[in-house]
């Protein structure tokens, strides 16, 4: 590989992502004396959960006070201000590769920095790129007014705009409650929360975990707030169709059994002008995948990066933290970030920043939050019955307008026997989002999946599109 043109600055660690995990990892690694560069596509640190909002002390936090998110974020800002941490906002790493013992990380700017690209060389990398919404197609989900739960949160928190006056929230998991809470706070009416699983078991499961009681309390707090707003919280119900001509005007919901199969004769229509859907999250593993890191199936059945107890991946020098190792929420992300920061410093032969006792607390917290995540996924799994609602004319890939019938034809008539072939025959997942929205659903509909084939199919050569002119010029950032 000709690399003579890459006059990229070499740093100790590049941390990809400035959410709870990335911020925590950066602070710990910097405390050990590592030269750290943090790359994030958001305008401010904080990731999907904090979204740059100033940290609130009342946010749930465990362990030593100086390792709370509020303290870590304050220290991150100080270290960024003094130049110890090189923080690059509004940048996305579109590709990563190995060169000798180093990593080469290729960045592009967001639309404000169109055309700007830069390369970094680093001795170690922490992937803390979080997760994105999991989508499960159903008839009408492509209608305007239907959006992901994460998308609704972004809209409301980011710009104060509510997606509609009457917004149904549907899917599975406590995230639905958070989305509903945000919508209610901003003046929307929520006619119903449509939960496909039975959430009552969550309280028992979460309370059984040491430290999990606060989480189940938080959950109950959400539920009672919704009760005050008289929002019906329907269990074992799913939205089976979004109805509307130019945009969503109503949803058809139905009772489902434990496998999410519709109970005949239970469907009814709820009028609404928006629908927020959340079926959990898919770890953003692209960059680790480009390096060939080993993947495993996480507790929620999605593909995640395989890590050892120190959060080292199968690629030496590559670490992963937060949702990329298993979708577990913001607290799990923070403590994993702490450990990844400590592990990367150790890998580079730097003195430890955390005391042995501090590290023990971090490891114990990680175990706690992993247990919590398992309780979450055990209570709110995705069940196979969702596929029964997928008709041949149901849209699977919105970018390329591929319907379920075409996916089935590719397998039954054209001889596709792996997801790559299905995608090449139908163009599913080949559009603008590069399969982020439809891949997990198409994979599931095909039903081929081994971890390896899913992992191979999931590798995107470019995480985000890059202008050809910028690539051609090989422009370097100053």
């Amino acid at each position, binding site marked *: *590989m*000709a*690399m003579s*043109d890459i006059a990229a600055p070499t740093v100790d660690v590049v941390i990809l992502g400035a959410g709870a995990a990335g911020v925590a990892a950066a602070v710990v690694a910097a405390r050990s004396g590592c030269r750290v560069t943090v790359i994030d596509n958001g305008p401010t640190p904080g990731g999907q959960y904090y979204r740059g909002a100033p940290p609130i002390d009342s946010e749930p936090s465990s362990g030593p006070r100086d390792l709370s998110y509020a303290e870590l974020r304050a220290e991150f800002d100080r270290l960024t201000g003094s130049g110890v941490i090189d923080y690059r906002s509004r940048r996305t790493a579109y*590709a990563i*590769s*190995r060169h000798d013992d180093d990593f*080469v990380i*290729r960045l592009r700017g967001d639309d404000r920095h169109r*055309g700007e690209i830069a390369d970094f060389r680093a001795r170690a990398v922490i992937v803390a790129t979080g997760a994105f919404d999991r989508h499960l197609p159903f008839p009408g989900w492509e209608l305007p007014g239907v959006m992901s739960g994460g998308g609704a949160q972004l809209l409301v928190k980011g710009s104060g705009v509510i997606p509609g006056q009457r917004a149904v929230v549907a899917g599975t998991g406590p995230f639905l409650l958070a989305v509903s809470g945000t919508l209610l706070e901003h003046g929307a009416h929520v006619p119903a929360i449509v939960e496909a699983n039975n959430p009552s078991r969550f309280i028992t499961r979460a309370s059984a975990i040491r430290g999990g009681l606060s989480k189940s309390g938080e959950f109950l707090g959400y539920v009672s707030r919704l009760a005050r707003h008289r929002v019906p919280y329907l269990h074992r119900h799913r939205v089976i169709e979004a109805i509307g001509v130019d945009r969503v005007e109503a949803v058809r919901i139905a009772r489902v059994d434990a496998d999410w199969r519709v109970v005949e004769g239970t469907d009814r229509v709820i009028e609404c002008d928006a629908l927020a859907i959340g079926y959990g999250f898919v770890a953003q593993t692209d960059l680790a995948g*480009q390096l060939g890191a080993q993947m495993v199936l996480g507790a929620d059945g999605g593909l995640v990066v395989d890590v050892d107890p120190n959060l080292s991946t199968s690629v030496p020098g590559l670490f992963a933290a937060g949702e990329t190792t298993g979708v577990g929420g913001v607290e799990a992300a923070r403590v994993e970030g702490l450990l990844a920061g400590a592990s990367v410093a150790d890998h580079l032969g730097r003195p430890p920043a955390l005391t042995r006792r501090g590290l023990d607390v971090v490891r114990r917290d990680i175990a706690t939050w992993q247990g919590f995540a398992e309780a979450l996924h055990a209570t709110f799994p995705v069940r196979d019955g969702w596929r029964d609602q997928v008709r041949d004319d149901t849209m699977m890939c919105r970018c*390329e307008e591929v319907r379920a019938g075409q996916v089935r034809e590719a397998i039954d*008539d*054209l*001889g*596709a*026997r*792996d997801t*790559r*072939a299905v995608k*090449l*025959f139908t*163009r599913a997942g*080949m*559009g*603008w989002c*590069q399969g982020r929205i439809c891949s997990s659903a198409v994979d599931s509909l095909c039903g081929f999946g081994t971890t390896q084939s899913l992992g191979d199919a999931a590798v*995107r*050569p*470019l995480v985000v*599109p*890059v*202008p*050809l*002119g910028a*690539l*051609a010029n*090989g422009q370097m950032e100053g």
Partner: protein
Amino acid sequence: MNADVIVIGAGIVGACCAHYCAQAGLSVIVVDRGSVAGGTTGAGEGNILVSDKEPGPELDLALLSRELWAQMAGELGDSFELDAKGGLVVATRAATLEHLHRFAAEQAEAGVIAEPVTAKGLRDHEPHIARDLLGGVFYPQDMQVQPMLAAARLLQHARSTGRVTVLPETEVLEIERDGSGAVTGVRTPTERISAPHVVNAAGTWGGVVAGLARVDLPILPRRGFILVTEPLPPMIRHKVYAADYVANVASDNAGLETSAVIEGTHSGTVLIGSSRERVGFDKTLDWEVIRQEAQQAVAIFPFLADVQLMRTYGGFRPYCPDHLPVIGPDSRAPGFLHACGHEGAGIGLAAATGLLIAQAIAGTNLAMDIAPFAPNRFEGAHVA
């Protein structure tokens, strides 16, 4: 199970073999260890080119093949996006233009339609092309096809004749031969399939499949990849590439060295590929090569500078030491035929390859001389 012919490989070449064998009245079983079109067929841009071939057996094969492609598209009702868009080869330097015109004149003598284009004329063919190009040659016979769909639709059509069975996810473990050395069928993990003819259409894995019958075939993989942009309104009408010529001092012949081939597709994306690379590729993405491809593409179509590269994809081209495919009966193993090693031209050459294989098996007159493609031509030769 038994049939007249077993075809190993359900890529484009295997599909064409099955198609023409069925047409000749033969019964066929197509086996593939994976998906239909799951190998190199799905890793290219679907080129059916005559423009990049110098006079000789490969050009003759290409000229025959493009006629057959047009016929097949007619028979199958345009179900695989065959587009007779034509190719435009452009020159950036005076010396190159001179070579290009000489090369085109030689091709014309061999039956290629090659129309010289002036610098100004380039813009009539391609309104968005760079203004600083010196001229070129237009090749109306160049075509493009969606290669995976072509393979799948051809196999679907062949199955509808009732003479063809397709078995995906069926790996051949051994090609069986009798005491006289003749092939008698294949063994898969679950069964034995007998047939007096076995066709090796395994593409890049053709050498491995030949080994299953204990014959040597020097087919090597060469990685190539293609850049795919975001979807755009139609901006590029033809296959467009810049020519460069590497003079072979010893023979005074000019060998064509192409840069990125740029073209639009039905879905609106622009593909930037390379028709024939002389450089080997690393297994991992080589970003320096991507940078060069981007550079070449932008030099020919400046508007591409603001267009986003969305993804890349790649695969392994199968090639032989003399860069010619292997087509026809293997005299070392009676009943065993090869149809592989087409390098970067497998889609384009598949149709003629399938026809010739069917003719060889049926014992009818061959549409052209296949001696230059003989499987045993490497015997005794030193293979590096």
